[in-house]
């Protein structure tokens, strides 16, 4: 398979601590790979290595077959980056932000006279073309950040928490744009804290915990492997015997959310639970990435 992005055995120490420890990651054209993990899992450091911001202490990264460590400048020609924080150039208008970003690439984008109006139109920024970016709402700022990351026609796009802080309508607008970019053949690496975003957009997930990949695959496969087939939700006060029941199966304390326990179980365990607690009222639902994060956060 021809990968747009290949990362093998990435290792990074910062401040004397191992932040990323042997991470592998792949992305092909027309695919969105969700990079997930709880805070401190090493997502941002991994992402920063992948787009050439940080140098890995060990491991290899290839973008379009070009090794970042050998020819960073050429590899970065094929990369677009939308950082988590707005880093547009406040000294320029929305339109000028696109042209100035294009000036940071060689070979220069040749069709800039068409490309800039096309991006403004596509991201619905045309009415604000001559405004300063700081006058835009949060949703349009994000649009500008993504448009700027695309001005040089990269094949691989990094989106670092692209919808953080946006209202639901603006989030869905960004989702639509990202989805269309995928259909056009861009490879996209997406980090997010929103589980619904990761589930809806990602074709594959790479889950990090403590700097290591703990799961990869489709959302369904990752959840099945790491969480379980079902999640039992019950009032913590009504079923005091549940921790002991879990301990009997070699499991730790259940995750507690607002006084309710969320207990991931397999199909067999669900049947055993029903037999063990016939008088307890509970709800059974499918696992979500929230459950995965809770599980990873609770693990020592």
């Amino acid at each position, binding site marked *: 398979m021809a990968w747009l992005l290949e990362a093998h055995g990435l290792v990074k120490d*910062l401040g004397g601590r191992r932040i990323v420890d042997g991470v592998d990651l792949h992305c092909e054209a027309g695919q969105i790979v969700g990079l997930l993990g709880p805070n401190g899992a090493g997502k941002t450091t991994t992402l*920063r290595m992948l*787009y050439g*911001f*940080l*140098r890995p202490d060990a491991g290899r990264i290839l973008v379009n077959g070009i090794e970042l460590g050998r020819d*960073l*400048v050429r590899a*970065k*020609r094929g990369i677009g*980056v939308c*950082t988590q*924080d*707005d*880093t*547009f*150039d*406040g*000294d*320029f208008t929305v339109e000028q932000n696109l042209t*100035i*970003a294009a*000036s*940071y*690439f*060689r070979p220069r984008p040749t069709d800039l006279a068409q490309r800039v109006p096309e991006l403004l139109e596509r991201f619905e920024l045309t009415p604000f073309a001559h405004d300063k970016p700081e006058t835009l709402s949060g949703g349009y700022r994000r649009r500008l950040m993504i448009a*700027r*990351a695309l001005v040089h026609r990269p094949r691989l796009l990094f989106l670092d928490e692209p919808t953080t802080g946006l209202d639901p309508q603006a989030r869905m607008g960004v989702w639509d744009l990202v989805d269309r970019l995928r259909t056009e053949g861009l490879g996209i690496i997406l980090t997010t804290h929103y589980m619904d975003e990761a589930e809806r957009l990602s074709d594959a997930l790479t889950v990090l915990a403590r700097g290591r990949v703990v799961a990869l695959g489709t959302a369904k496969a990752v959840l099945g492997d790491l969480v379980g087939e079902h999640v039992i939700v019950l009032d913590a006060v009504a079923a005091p015997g549940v921790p002991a029941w879990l301990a009997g199966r070699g499991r730790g304390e259940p995750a507690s959310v607002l006084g309710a326990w969320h207990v991931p179980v397999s199909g067999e365990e669900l049947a055993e639970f029903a037999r063990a607690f016939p008088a307890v009222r509970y709800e059974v639902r499918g696992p979500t990435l929230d459950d995965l994060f809770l599980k990873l956060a609770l693990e020592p």
Partner: protein
Amino acid sequence: MSWLGAAIEWQSRAVVGRHLRVYLRNWYTAFLPPALEPVTMLVAFGLGLGGYVASLSWQGRPIEYMTFVAPGLLAYATFMTAIFQSLFGAFIRMRYQRTWEGQLTTQIGLAHVIWGEVLWAGLLATMYVVIVALVLVGFHLAGLITIAIAWLPLILPVSFVAACAFGALGLCFTALLPTIDHMNLPVFLLVLPMGLLSSTYFPLTQPVLVALNLANPLYHLAQAFRGLLLGGPVVGPLVGVAGLSALVLAVLVPLDLRLLRRRVLGD
């Protein structure tokens, strides 16, 4: 990419191009201060204070104080423009505008950002010096000062090289100081004393000051400009400017890169 090679790569020029584009867009506010400042200085120090200076000599011949100050103004403008740009301008771009972070997501590397800032400090200072020089030409034609205006074009490359060194010095503080409020420390402890005690506004005769200034590129710059425009030794001061500027750049640009790698990239 070596730290030195980055100076001449297209990415560094792209960074300079970005700063120039911003600057020229506000040309009417940008060009006013360098035009008015020397006028104010010449009037205040030359016509005002100069009236109280009984006698002043340069290379053994008497000289008007206003004429003595004129080359010093060019050196002072070179220093102040470059160091303030790399202190405040660069700090604002790095910390508040996050311009650097945006640039670093492209084919621009940190060494290019740093060289871009250094070269921009050099270019901006040289542009200011051109304006100050034009003001001096006006004063010369009005008979208020007497300078060798034919030598003025020669000061531009000298000014550029020295300003790049001053820019590298300013970036060191930008890399080290935690907030913009801390800029008062280098401004009052280094920049103002250095700007005023480098033979810019008065001839240095105090032996300790003269000895200290031998390692100061601004002192040699002021002496070189004075030698060119008023007639006097030129080669020695020019060698001093070139040598010290090269030394400052060779030491401070790699240091800036190291400090800013930690600060900007967290590496």
